[in-house]
C-alpha cells in the first residue's frame, strides 16, 4: 500500500490532475485562470509552474471556445481537461457539449473519439453570487454519449478523476464545491483509479435506501445518524456516477428495504431523483412499500445567498423526507 496524504476534496482534484499530467504527456489542462493563478479554487495550484504554459493553459474568456477547442484537441488524440470556472457558466458552451462532445464518436462511427474530461465546480452553499451555485447535472445526464461524475470524498475524487481522464469517452466531472474544503481524508500518493458507473454504499441499514451524491452525501449521512437514534436504519448509497446510473446497486438496495428516498440539491422537477424513482418502480415495484421520497432543491431559480440555506436540502429536511418514506 502506498503512502497517503491527508487531503481536502479540492486538493485531491489538484493531486489527481498532477498525477495525470505527470503520467501522460497528452493530458492538457485548459481554462480561465487555471494557469498562473492556479484556479479560483486553487484546484490547479502549482501545475502551471511545474508543467508549463503548454500543458496548463490560461485561455481567453469563452466557454464555447474552451470546450470546442478541447473537442478538436481530443479528436487529434490528446486528453484535454477543460475547466469551466463554475458550472453555471457551462451554458455558453452547451452546444459544443451536446452537439459535439457527446456525439463525435457516434457521428464518425468511432473513427474519432473524444477522451476529454470537462471539469467544473458545482452546487451551492458557499454564499457565492448569482449563477455560482447551480446544480444542473440533469442537463448532462439526459444527453447520451456523456458520462457524468460527481464525487463526494477526496479519495474518490482522485480515483474517479483519473478514470475520467483515461476514459476513451467524454466525461463531465462536477465537483461539489460546498465540500471542497469541508474535511480531509487519506488519499494515496500513487496513481489509482475508481471505476466510473459504480455507486458506493456509505452506510448500511435495512429500513430505507437513500440515494444521493455530491455535497448532499454528508448531510444525508448525518440525517441517517439522527434517524438511527429513532430506530430508523438507512442504507446510504452515494451514486458517484450520475449517468449512466448504477442500476444494479440502486435496485438491490431497494429490494432489501422496500423504501427509498433520493436526495439532491438540484431542482426537484426533472431532476435525477425522478429518474431513480422511475427505475425503482420499473424494476422493483413488487418490493415497494412506500412512495419514493424526493428531497431536492425547489423548482425556482437558485436564490442569492441570503436565502440559500432555505433552498438547499438541510439535514432536517433530509431527515423528515426519509422519515416519511420510513413511516408511510
Amino acid at each position, binding site marked *: 500500500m502506498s503512502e497517503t496524504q491527508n487531503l481536502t476534496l479540492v486538493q485531491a482534484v489538484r493531486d489527481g490532475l498532477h498525477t495525470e499530467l505527470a503520467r501522460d504527456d497528452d493530458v492538457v489542462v485548459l481554462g480561465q485562470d487555471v494557469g498562473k493563478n492556479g484556479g479560483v479554487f486553487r484546484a490547479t495550484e502549482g501545475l502551471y509552474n511545474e508543467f508549463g504554459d503548454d500543458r496548463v493553459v490560461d485561455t481567453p*474568456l469563452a466557454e464555447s471556445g474552451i470546450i470546442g477547442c478541447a473537442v478538436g484537441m481530443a479528436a487529434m488524440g490528446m486528453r484535454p481537461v477543460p475547466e469551466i470556472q463554475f458550472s453555471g457558466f457551462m451554458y455558453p458552451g452547451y452546444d459544443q457539449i451536446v452537439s459535439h462532445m457527446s456525439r463525435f464518436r457516434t457521428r464518425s462511427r468511432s473513427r474519432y473519439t473524444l477522451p476529454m474530461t470537462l471539469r467544473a465546480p458545482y452546487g451551492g452553499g458557499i454564499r457565492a453570487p448569482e449563477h455560482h451555485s447551480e446544480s444542473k447535472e440533469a442537463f448532462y445526464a439526459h444527453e447520451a454519449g456523456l458520462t457524468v461524475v460527481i464525487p463526494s470524498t477526496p479519495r474518490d475524487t482522485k480515483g474517479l478523476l483519473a478514470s475520467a481522464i483515461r476514459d476513451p469517452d467524454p466525461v463531465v466531472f462536477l465537483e461539489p464545491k460546498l465540500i471542497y474544503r469541508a474535511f480531509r481524508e487519506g488519499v494515496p500518493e500513487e496513481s489509482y483509479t475508481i471505476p466510473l458507473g459504480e455507486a458506493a454504499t456509505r452506510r448500511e441499514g435495512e429500513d430505507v435506501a437513500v440515494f444521493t451524491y455530491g455535497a448532499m452525501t454528508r448531510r444525508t449521512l448525518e440525517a441517517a445518524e439522527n434517524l438511527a437514534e429513532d430506530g430508523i436504519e438507512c442504507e446510504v448509497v452515494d451514486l458517484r456516477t450520475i449517468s449512466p446510473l448504477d442500476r444494479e446497486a440502486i435496485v438491490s438496495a431497494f429490494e432489501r428495504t422496500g423504501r427509498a428516498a433520493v436526495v439532491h440539491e438540484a431542482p426537484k422537477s426533472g431532476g435525477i431523483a425522478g429518474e431513480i424513482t422511475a427505475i425503482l418502480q420499473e424494476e422493483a415495484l413488487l418490493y415497494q412499500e412506500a412512495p419514493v421520497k424526493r428531497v431536492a432543491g425547489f423548482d425556482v431559480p437558485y436564490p442569492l445567498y441570503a436565502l440559500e440555506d*432555505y433552498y438547499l436540502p438541510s439535514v432536517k429536511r433530509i431527515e423528515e423526507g426519509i422519515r416519511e418514506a420510513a413511516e408511510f
Partner: protein
Amino acid sequence: MSVFDRAYDDPVRVLDEDGEVVGDVPDLDEETLVGVYRSMRLARHFDGRAVSLQRQGRMGTYPPLSGQEAAQIGSAFALAEDDWIVPSYREHGAAVVRGVPLKKTLLYWMGHEDGNRVPEDANVFPVAVPIASQVPHATGAAWASKLQGNDDVFLCYFGDGATSEGDFHEGLNFAGVFDTPTVFFCNNNQWAISVPRERQTRSATLAQKAAAYGFEGIQVDGMDPLAVYSVTKAAVEKARDPSEQRPRPTMIEAIQYRFGAHTTADDPTVYRDDDEVEEWKRKDPIPRLEAYLRSEGILDDDRVEEIEASVEKQVADAIDAAESVPRPDPRELFEHAYEELPPELEAQYERFVALREEHGDEAFVGE
C-alpha cells in the same frame, strides 16, 4: 471633423496625469463638473467601505471598482435622463449616478434579491453576472426602443475579457445590422481576473473589433473623466441622431486599470506585479480631476472637505440602511419565478411553510 476620425490606437485625452489640459475640454457647467468629481469620490469611498464590510463578514463576495471611476461616472454623466444603462456586475459607480441607491447595491452583494430590484424610475438593467451575456440585451432593448419610436440610447458596459465571448460578437453584430441606438462601452481594465489583456486576444486594440460590425470603434483614456465624458457624449449623440454615413452604434474602449482585486475572493499578487499597479495609480482619475477643478477655481479645500464629508455620510447611511433590512422573508424564494405559482411549486411552497411552522428556521440550517 468628428472625434471618431482617428486611429484605433490613439486614445482621446483631455487631462493628462497631472490634470493639465491636453485636449478639448467638454462644455460642462460647474455643477456638473463638481457632480462628476463628487460621484467619483462617492464611488471610491463606497468601494473601500464595501471591501471592508466583506472582510468583516458583513457582506459576501464583492467586486471592487477603484481605479475605474472615471470610466463609469464620465460615461454615465453623458446620458440624457431617459437613456438606459445595461451593466455587468462592477458598475455600481455608474448605477448610483443613474438612480440606483447604494443601499440596493449593498443589499445585492449581501445576498438579497431585492438589491437587484432596480427602482421603477431608474433606467438600469439588473446586474448581469455571466460575462458578455448582457450585450445582446442592450442591443435588443435599444432595438425595441427604436421600434417603439423612442429616441433613448442604451449604454452597455462590459470588460476586456468579455470581448472574447460569443455574446459580445453576436450582440455587436446585431446592433450593426439593425442599426440600434447602442453604445458599447468596454471597461478595459487590463485584466480578466488573472488573464492579462494580451492573452485575451491578439488584436492590437479592442476598439478595432468594431470594424467587424461595420461601425466605429474608439479608444479613450478611461482614467480621464472628461475624455470619457466627451467620447461617450459623441457616441450617444450619434446613436440618438444618426447621419447617413455614420451608423448609430459605437464601441468605446476605455483604457483603465483595476487597482484592487478582481473580487474580494481574489488575490491579485499571485498574477501581477505591484510595480504595475503603482504605475497605473499615477493615472488615478480622482486627483487628476481635482487638480483641474482646483486650477479652474471650481474646487478649493473647503469644498473638497465638504464633499468628503457628504460622501462619507451618504455611504454610512446606505450601510446603516442596508444592514437594518432584515433577512428576506424565506417565502420570497417562491415569489418571482412566475407571475402565478404553478401547482407543483405551490405544493412545494406549502410543504415549506409547514416545515418552518413545525420545526422553525433551524430546520433549514445546513449542517
